[in-house]
């Protein structure tokens, strides 16, 4: 496997669906991360799923909302690395609230007309995301 510098302190976001790491970079707002260096590794050969992407982040990641990863791609794992050793590897929990991650598609919703209205989704008890304004459940677009 291609090895872009082993991480000393930081995280490795692994098992990302191949070709989607740039999108994650944007949604995680990694460009706003100060004091961290980031490597996007695309199309890594993987036994599990054929190909995958990996994001490695060296530095302070405390500002990141990693929970949205669980929403975006439930297969993703996050390994936390301290002093060169993996101290934990887990799937993030689903976030209770998504702000400006997905957009409400209900044309009757206030978010469709109101200026500078945040798109807020809340996790329902049945594991669906519903728009905070109109309560319409968000459904992934069919590919």
């Amino acid at each position, binding site marked *: 496997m291609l090895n872009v510098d082993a991480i000393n302190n930081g995280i490795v976001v692994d098992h990302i669906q191949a070709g989607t790491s740039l999108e994650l970079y944007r949604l995680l707002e990694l460009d706003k991360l100060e004091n961290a260096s980031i490597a996007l590794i695309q199309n890594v050969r993987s036994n599990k799923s054929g190909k995958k992407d990996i994001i490695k982040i060296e530095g302070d990641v405390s500002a990141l909302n990693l929970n949205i990863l669980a929403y975006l791609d439930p297969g993703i794992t996050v390994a936390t690395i301290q002093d060169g050793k993996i101290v934990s590897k887990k799937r993030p929990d689903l976030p209770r609230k998504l702000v400006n991650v997905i957009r409400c598609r*209900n044309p*009757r*919703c*206030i*978010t*469709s*007309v*109101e*200026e*500078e*209205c945040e798109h807020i989704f809340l996790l*329902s*008890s*049945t594991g669906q995301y519903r*728009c*905070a*304004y*109109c*309560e*319409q*459940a968000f459904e992934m677009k069919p590919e």
Partner: protein
Amino acid sequence: MRHLIDPLDFTREEVENLLDLADRIIADPAAYQEVARHKKLATLFYEPSTRTRLSFEAAILNLGGSVLGFPGADVSSAAKGESVADTIRVISAYADIAAMRHPKEGAPLRASRYSGIPVINAGDGGHNHPTQTLTDLMTIRRRCGRLDHLTIGLCGDLKFGRTVHSLIKSLARYEGIRFLFISPKELRVPSYIITDVVEPAGLEYQEVRSLEDSMPQLDILYMTRVQRERFFNEEDYIRLKNTYVLTEDKMKLAGPNLAVLHPLPRVNEISISVDDDPRAAYFEQAKNGVYVRMALIMTLLGLPDPKQKEGN
């Protein structure tokens, strides 16, 4: 700052306190005619709904307050593209409380987040209409003396009927409620209402097609309109529309303590001949709507109840 945006914003206990207050107002309206003196209600109706607007206006006037309103979106700032967030910030400087009707779902919630005064959702598109729900609950409680252990039939358009969905959500908080969902298959209650609301509450329910068969079991019959535009073709509409019309004949099948509710306006889904039946509660329901709005305005403004002794 309290608002009423979603029918479930109030706890069960808060709802019952509100209905108790409405009952006290009915018992002695004169005692309440000055309690909101110098208070102004802004009616922000971005789409016309004369009935709801007048109900709110009657409520504040009955309490000795006054009304500020704009007549409709076409002549208001909304037409000039002002956001709901900006409008409510301005209105907060003019009025003490606002009732907002808006064609877009979630508009009152958006407003409440920027408001300096309590906001009441007076209907947001096909979404929520909490004061209608409170009116329904009040009418059920006054007729049946309780909100638990009742068999409730909801009939007609259960798919698009927002008053139906809100009522189900509210009643699902009480024990021993049994629902009969009476509708054509085209207008069945949405599955999320069953999976997210009724089943988690552990309540008994049945989806049925026949209003006639349901009549003998019911404590409450909540009628809604079956609208022509909900059907793909005219034949289906014609075939089904009479099935869901309440007539004197169908009333004969029901028990003596049934109460028939309808959010109004009705078109033809309840025959006029049913109006004189003592079990018809829909005009009383409209009247209750004013009292429940009076109680709501007092509650949100924190106005003291003249009939409630100190320390109570």
